[in-house]
């Protein structure tokens, strides 16, 4: 699951993304126009179908993993055998 700050709090020079962008610019990566900093969370589930896992993870994101006031999120479901 990946959550990112919504665009709204990123106005002005306040966001971590803006600071990272400035750092990149000072290293010569001037082509960077926008940086967004977020979180990566990996959750392992047991004994559930892909469909059910999708429903459950969506609920986890809404209830705890992301704060909808300041973050949006997306996630991918991978069956375990594919991850090995």
């Amino acid at each position: 699951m990946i959550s990112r700050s919504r665009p709204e709090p990123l106005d002005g020079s306040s966001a971590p993304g803006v600071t990272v962008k400035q750092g990149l610019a000072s290293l010569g990566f001037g082509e960077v126009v926008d940086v967004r900093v977020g979180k990566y969370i990996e959750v392992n589930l047991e004994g559930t179908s892909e469909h059910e896992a999708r429903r459950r993870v969506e609920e986890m994101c809404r209830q705890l993993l992301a704060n909808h006031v300041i973050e949006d999120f997306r996630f991918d479901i991978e069956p375990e055998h594919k991850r090995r």
Partner: protein
Amino acid sequence: MKFGVVVFPGTWSDRDCGWVVDQVVGAELTYLWHKDADLKGCDCVILPGGFAYGDYLRTGAIARFAPVMEQIGEFADKGGLVWGICNGFQVLCEAGLLPGALIRNASLEFRCEWTNLVVERTDLPFTARCEEREVLRVPIAHGEGSYFADPATLSRLEQRGQVVFRYCDPGGRVVPAANPNGSLHNIAGIVNARGNVLGMMPHPERCSEAELGGTDGLKLFRSVAENALKVFVS
């Protein structure tokens, strides 16, 4: 009048708040452990500053699932006084007892310094002893105190007069230079629509005795203690 000070693993301002309640104001005090399933008959519950549950995931995100928080939600619904200071404010926002969120300071720095706050509501149990638009000198100590809410929520807060404290200059002017963290509209503290749940980033418990450099914070503690007394008498 009985104050309850909530202690989560990682809370650090509980003894400071308790000291002011017990030793300075002289009110009844009890500590509420995060696993407590009842509020021990408290009239006002304080959620103090710190890093509850290490602030893992987000500030206040885990604390809201503590058993004591369920009781506090019901207590607030019944009109009980709930007062979140610093991390306590962050917990109240995560718990949905107050709108919005506290995000990283605009400077990206932890800020530990004195601020000036203009009091915009004096009709609340928390501010009854303050003068209209009085300027209080109260310290802050936080890395994530920048108040954020979406435009609709912000406009609703303003229309309903739910902004209680705003960062200002010593003369009471709400100017960008007085904003220590990038909070929208210089917001330092808000109250719920009913007026019984207050959240604020500055630390009144750290300026309630002259030895600590100021006593403006004591006005808030006295307001709560005396207001509850009035309610009891009437």
